[in-house]
């Protein structure tokens, strides 16, 4: 097997292992906690008899490993469980909403990548220059502000005062999401506000390191202009770390999506997760947590693969 192939297989294996371990963590971890689906369903008026009866009904009296196995194998076959109060299959509940969240996260990432690279690169080129200082000040502010605060303020400014954009992002299932780009603007802006802050700082730092590499120094001494330096010599070196930095941000981004969907009533899986948590619908919560992890591991794997394929010499992570 070629070294490249072996590397890929190793990464894939690690990814699968992570997923299985995460599933165990989620399912068994929840089982270890004092509450379970039965007490959650009965709430404050749970008597021991009622709880016992309901546990039997939900199959919670079987050994935990058996239940875990059943849940995991069901998950792999596409059965995500049944929502608690209503018994509706989770797949039905989230079917239309997964795409909405994918679009939201996708659009954000699509804007995040170029913006972060440009801002990070320019800041790095002139450390402590105007761009750098102002970006740093802005990012420092935004990274601090919780997303629900940013979201609420944006909603008031753009939707209620200026009336440029809708305050809630109601998705009409009968029309494609792309046909109404205006409902994406505020959620994406809110997500970008905080995600940019993180990413710009990381790219800037990486860029500074790259710019200090010996051969860049040499090129500079040879009289090559800064901009050309940046574009033809520095940027190619930053692609790989940049991909990794951005992939690193994905877990954080997905967490942000949950809040943002709640603020704007954007019908995606984040909002479903919150409602499920508030009504203590454990099967839905576990399924969505697992899905999120799958998305993250998949993205991370893709990022790793891209990096490997781009530069076979980058076998080991920094």
């Amino acid at each position: 097997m070629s070294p490249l192939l072996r590397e890929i297989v190793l990464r894939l294996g690690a990814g699968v292992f992570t997923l299985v371990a995460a599933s165990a963590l989620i399912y068994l971890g929840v089982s270890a906690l004092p509450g379970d689906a039965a007490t959650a369903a009965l709430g404050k008026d749970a008597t021991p008899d009622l709880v016992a009866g309901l546990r039997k009904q939900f199959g919670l009296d079987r050994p935990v490993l058996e239940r875990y196995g059943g849940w995991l194998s069901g998950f792999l076959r596409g059965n995500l469980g049944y929502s608690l109060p209503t018994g509706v299959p989770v797949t039905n509940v989230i079917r239309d909403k997964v795409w909405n969240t994918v679009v939201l996260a996708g659009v954000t990432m699509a804007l995040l990548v170029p913006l972060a690279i440009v801002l990070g690169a320019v800041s790095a080129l002139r450390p402590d220059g105007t761009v750098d200082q102002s970006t740093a000040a802005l990012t420092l502010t935004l990274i601090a502000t919780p997303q629900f605060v940013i979201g609420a303020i944006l909603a008031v400014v753009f939707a209620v005062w200026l009336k440029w954009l809708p305050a809630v992002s109601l998705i009409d299932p009968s029309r494609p999401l792309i046909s109404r780009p205006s409902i994406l603007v505020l959620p994406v802006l809110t997500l970008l506000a905080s995600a940019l802050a993180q990413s710009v700082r990381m790219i800037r730092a990486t860029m500074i390191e790259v710019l200090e590499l010996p051969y860049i120094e040499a090129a500079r001494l040879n009289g090559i202009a800064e901009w050309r330096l940046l574009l033809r010599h520095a940027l190619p070196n930053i692609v790989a770390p940049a991909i990794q930095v951005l992939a690193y941000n994905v877990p954080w981004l997905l967490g942000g999506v949950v809040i943002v969907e709640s603020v704007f009533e954007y019908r995606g899986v984040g909002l479903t997760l919150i409602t499920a948590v508030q009504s203590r619908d454990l099967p839905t919560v576990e399924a969505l947590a697992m899905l999120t992890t799958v998305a993250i591991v998949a993205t991370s794997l893709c990022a790793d693969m891209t990096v490997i394929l781009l530069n076979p010499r980058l076998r080991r992570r920094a």
Partner: protein
Amino acid sequence: MSSLFALSRDAEVARSQPAALMLLRSVVGTRGGRAGALLVGAVLALAFLGPFLAPFSPTAIVDTPFAQPSKAHALGTDALGRDGLSRFLCGGRTLALTSFAATLMAYLAGIPLGAFAGVRGGVVDIGAVAVSDLMLAIPSLVFVLVLLAAVGPSLSMVAIGIAAVEVPRVTRIFRAITVEVAALEFVEVAMARGETTASIVVREIVPNLWTALMADFGFRLTASIVLVSSLSYLGLGQAPPAADWGLMVSENQIGLTIQPWIIVVPGATIAVLTFGVNLLTDAFARRLGRSIVSGGVP
């Protein structure tokens, strides 16, 4: 990562507090550090002393809902006609306490775990790293949400959950530091002397961790504050009718266009707190020679 430990490495001399104190003093000497300290101090004072200054009980009905700010009610009233100023003054204490508690718990668990893994190496080390990486694959908020779904909304669970998601990050950092410090001579000497791992950790490693701790603390605390307030906003932290900054934003959001102050003031205060913490953290980082972000640490 290496420059993070510049101080601890160079100072066999600097084996404990003196190095940390020096760092602290130099940070406060910077503009950013001073500003950060001031902001954080102000907000914390507000959070802890506020309840004593509140003119009304935070749950008493004093006027009609969404009344405008006036002499009697500096922040107007909220959705139920309760005094906005009183609720604001009483709304920070739990947030501050829960965030600090979560961060503290994260360190109490993470530092020993990381140090232990770093000194021991081998299987223990690999295991610790593996579990940390695993936890990092699940978004912090989602993880805590799962816990809360199982146990029900509860403040203690929020703190525990947040601590749980911060532990892997803390473990990674302190494991890395430990590995570096452990390579230093005085530790090798101690190991050669046959001292137990625990004793090595406590007597040789930990005293050198203060500077790293101070630099990292800001990140953990900011993350905790944002998580606690976000969970409050979602109604999963303190239950009504408690006064809570995050909860105040969601409770009164419906009257945003009429009485924005009751939302803007608590929200902005949370932001000021995290901003101040970030300023301090940045000041620490600069003092340590380089931005901590370079290694992808947060």
